[in-house]
């Protein structure tokens, strides 16, 4: 019945929505930033544990739609053991992938995150996918203020 939506709602997204990874608090987190999408009410708190410039643990709490939950869940998996510079580079690629600015994105470069490429066709949903990453960006820049997509 929802054939048209296969590119947007891939099985991996349902899976992460049902069983979000790293859905917990890091009590001794080095970075903690809140992200908020006022348009849909999506809200998340991102926790990072750092070792120098390396992310050694990442987790989140909050509530959102399947796209935003899957996006943040996947993100916490993929940024673990990455350096700040590597994570920033992923953010950049992810952003280009989801906003469709670049034609020839190297989908291999984003690994599993490629399942979110489908949001490109749904402008109303792009922010759901990018909220996690804007929050990460703020955390990496050591900002304390909550991030808002608006």
């Amino acid at each position: 019945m929802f054939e048209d939506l296969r590119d947007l709602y891939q099985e991996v997204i349902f899976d992460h929505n049902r069983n979000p990874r790293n859905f917990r608090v890091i009590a001794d987190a080095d970075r903690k930033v809140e992200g908020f999408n006022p348009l849909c009410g999506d809200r998340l708190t991102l926790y990072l544990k750092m070792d120098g410039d390396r992310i050694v643990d990442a987790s989140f709490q909050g509530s959102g739609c399947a796209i935003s939950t899957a996006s943040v869940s996947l993100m916490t998996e993929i940024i673990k053991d990455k350096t700040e510079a590597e994570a920033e580079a992923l953010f950049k690629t992810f952003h280009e992938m989801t906003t469709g600015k670049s034609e020839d994105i190297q989908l291999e470069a984003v690994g599993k995150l490629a399942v979110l490429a489908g949001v490109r066709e749904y402008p109303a949903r792009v922010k759901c996918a990018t909220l996690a990453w804007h929050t990460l960006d703020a955390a990496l820049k050591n900002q304390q203020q909550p991030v808002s997509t608006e």
Partner: protein
Amino acid sequence: MALTSFPVELIRADFPILAEKIRNKPLVYLDNAASCQKPNAVIDSISHVYRHEYANIHRGVHTLSVRATDKFEAAREKVRGFINAASSKEIIFVRGATEAINLIAQTYGKANIKAGDEIVITAMEHHSNIVPWQMLCEQTGAVLKVASMNIQGELLYNEFASLLNNKTRLVAVAHMSNALGTINPVELIIAAAHAHNIPVMLDGAQAIPHLAVDVQALDCDFYVFSGHKLYGPSGIGVMYGKQALLEAMPPYQGGGDMIKTVSFEKSTYAGLPHKFEAGTPSIADVIGLGAAIDYLNEIGMANIAAYEAELLDYATQQAKQIKGLRIIGEAGDKGAILSFVLDRIHPHDIGTMLDSLGIAIRAGHHCAMPVMEFYGVPATARASFAMYNTRQEIDVLMNGIESLIDVFELS
């Protein structure tokens, strides 16, 4: 009127957009509380204005200007009749309900509300009936009081009444809530406020397309609404105010049309309604709103209300069959709005999934964040019905909801 005798198919034929295909499916438009679609009568009247009757109003001696002015003022008279105001001087054209409320806050409010005074609203207001009062409170030092509601989404009337006292300067409440569908007991509210000599503003943005409104019978002091939710054009709305109140109020914006005389020392203001209508208004849209009212009068607001009540009943019964669906807003007196949440499925996902089936609903906070907070949800999905919706469309909606629940759980 029985469901079968309401001429819904004839009405549908008057709304060309209802024949649109969305994602290759017939459009099922259930976002009427956000904005309604327009009948040919409105679309044609606007294009007729621009083709045959357009010029600026109240300014020229030439034929076209006279023609446009006559049509414009005729539309004002139609609005007067539609809400049964005593005089067309009490009908002020504005951009919409939002502008009307801001106008009242910044003219009536600034002139009459001082530090320590109180303004009473309810917990179910749209942001546009919260923020203008907060701004006024910031400017004046007045205090905003909020009457609560119960879990059904009904105003706690006794609590509301207990908020009224000799510091209260204005009561501003939604006639019908956009997030919940609740129709407030406005007769009681007005009587209680008037017993304290407190004027009452009703936000009629949602009520106006669903109920017959008689401002004299209600005895409300202000009534505001938007044309676009009344099958009319966007960008036009109405502020009704009792003449004596309007006459005592300072003007809103300064400019052309709202003056009697201007010199560099002092200007004098025009009489009602022009005092509040500075600048060139949305001329064709006012005339289009008049056409929407003619169209609605032909069908009859009482017939529309009866038909929509049956639609809402049907939708509510069907929704209650769906496991994991929780209706948000179950007031005893309710207009044609079905707000709901699903277990573990976010309203935005519901919105996107239904859209892929051609079904347009609203997913979000409906400009009523305090209401979302009250129910402990980030957002709801909202199907809102209009007189052109059908039982079959409700079936399509319910099937869609059931299928998406399946997809979320099985895949």
